């Protein structure tokens, strides 16, 4: 073997080694972050059907589960983030009382996305409305625009974040429909935690899914349907 061949062989070996060293962390990090090579599909419309008859006053399991899953403090000061909250409602005309969870309604036409100057507020192809933490400049216009008061602003420095759910001081955040779990084929934390199975999660576009079957079978409403935002979260029994 000539000296040039040896040199060439060594050069190729080194190059392949260097390339492997360069690419490997990327592949490993992608794996750690549970990244998926394919994007969200527009054939899917993730949604929820909440049965208010099954939701109990005083029960806060969904809120606790959400806080734990997403690394929220669980505080209820006006400056604390609350991605999901229990609302007690009382019909003024007849006194009928209900308890229900309220969170980002994952609208088809989300006002938060319309008003966001930097496109940080966005709707995924599968209907999940999210905030890109790297693009959000913290102007809070989306909080002004949301009819459901579903968004929170991070008012304080953060500690001990869940690596699956990155957050950022000075940015706006809200329910992600536990997108990190949904992408793994799991259910959102609030759905799993509900002792009465009051929250049904699934693909509204799949005619055979449990949620689509039930939405066809029972009367359900969208909150503030008069605004024509077509939320992905529906309520039964209001």
């Amino acid at each position, binding site marked *: 073997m000539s000296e040039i061949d040896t040199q060439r062989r060594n050069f190729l070996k080194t190059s392949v080694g260097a390339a492997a060293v360069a690419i490997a962390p990327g592949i490993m990090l992608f794996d750690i972050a549970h990244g998926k090579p394919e994007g969200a599909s527009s054939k899917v419309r993730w949604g929820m059907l909440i049965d208010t008859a099954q939701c109990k006053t005083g029960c806060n399991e969904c809120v606790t589960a959400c806080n734990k899953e997403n690394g929220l403090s669980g505080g*209820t*000061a*006006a*400056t*604390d*983030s*609350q991605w999901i*909250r*229990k*609302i*007690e*409602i*009382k*019909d*003024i*005309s007849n006194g009928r009382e209900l308890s229900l969870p*309220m969170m980002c309604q994952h609208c088809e036409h989300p*006002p938060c*996305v*319309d*008003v*966001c*100057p*930097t*496109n*940080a507020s966005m709707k995924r192809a599968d209907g999940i409305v999210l905030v890109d933490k790297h*693009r*959000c*400049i*913290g*102007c*809070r*216009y989306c*909080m*002004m*625009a*949301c*009819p*459901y*008061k579903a*968004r*929170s*602003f*991070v*008012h*304080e*420095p953060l500690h001990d974040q869940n690596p699956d759910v990155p957050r*950022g*001081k*000075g*940015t*706006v955040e809200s329910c992600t429909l536990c997108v990190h779990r949904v992408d793994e084929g799991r259910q959102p934390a609030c759905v799993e935690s509900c002792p009465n199975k009051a929250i049904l999660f699934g693909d509204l576009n799949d005619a055979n899914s449990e949620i689509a079957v039930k939405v066809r079978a029972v009367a359900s409403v969208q*909150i*503030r349907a008069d*605004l024509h935002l077509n939320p992905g979260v529906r309520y039964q029994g*209001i």
Partner: protein
Amino acid sequence: MSYTSPYELKSPLYYLLIALALLVLCGGLLAVHEMESQGHIITGMNNQVVWGMPHVFAIFLIVAASGVLNVSSIGSVFNKPDYKARSPLAGLLSIAMLGGGLMVLMLDLGRPDRIIVAATNYNPTSVFAWNIVLYSGMFATVFVYLWTMMERRMYPWSKAAGLAVFVWRFVLTTGTGLIFAFLVARQAYASAILPPMFIILSFAWGFAVFYLAQSAIYAWNGKTLEAHVQKRMSRLMGVFVIGALYLVATYHLTNLYFARQTAFEHFILLDGGVYPQLFWLGYIVIGNLLPLLLIFHPSLGKTKSVVGASLAIILGAFALLYVFIIGGQAFPLDIFPGFETSSAFGDGVIASYRPSVFEVLLGLGSLAAAFLITAIGIRVLNFVPREVPQKVEHH
């Protein structure tokens, strides 16, 4: 242009004011530093009242920056020589206030360090994104306009530039009104009357700022405003105040007519605590009745009264904006019409808001910035109004 300024701004008061403004500006920047390191927790803003005192200052300055250009428009577009002599000062004040307003708006962001993101990602459906274009365009058009007025070779273009400014500021204030007008779910805001309301408010507020600045400059130089100019300007200011009051009244009256809005109007005009007080005492009495009295009462209406009227109009503006911005958010969202609601997230209750010292410092810092730009501008360039010689028959 050969020009020797008769306006020697050498009085110790001038330097004292410059020093004071620098101090206030530093206070504002210190507040920003604290807000950035500790987070917005140190402000009075929260998840219910998301825009607070900084936005009151910002919107006042931006609206007044647009309105002050009325002086230019009357001069350049409608050919009134008395106003033409004042166009450069109006242009300078506009740039100064726009700069101050944008400063506070940007520094209040959760992530002001990401301003480059706002410049490079543009959402065409966002009114904020439109406003980024409108504000930077306003700077550019006013700069060009000033150039055409101050450079002899550019004089022929002055009228065209004045017309561009005239159109641009209308669009800009429309954009400011639309920030609120497009918020469909908020009872206080979703109304098509807001853009015209902001435009007419801008006339009154901008004119008041102009009159104050002009009076200060004249006083420093021991000059008095010619009587006919003084009378004309103060009357016009009064007309603007009446026009703005009419639109504010129309906004509330239309709301009162809609049954779904009456609870909100009840809150903001009657039983909402600090908000109705600020509306009636701050905006109606101090911001309208007092200036109208000072301007139109037969025994008043001279420079000193009109300076008082200008100050009252500005105070009234802050009162109105506080009621509009903060009161409008304090009233709970009607997520379940026909239901009483309660939760751990402030549903169904009036939100509380107490401005913190940091917010006020930031707001005052923006006023100081606008003052500094103006004060240094008139010192280094020829912005001061010089009367057009009167024709003989006037004397």
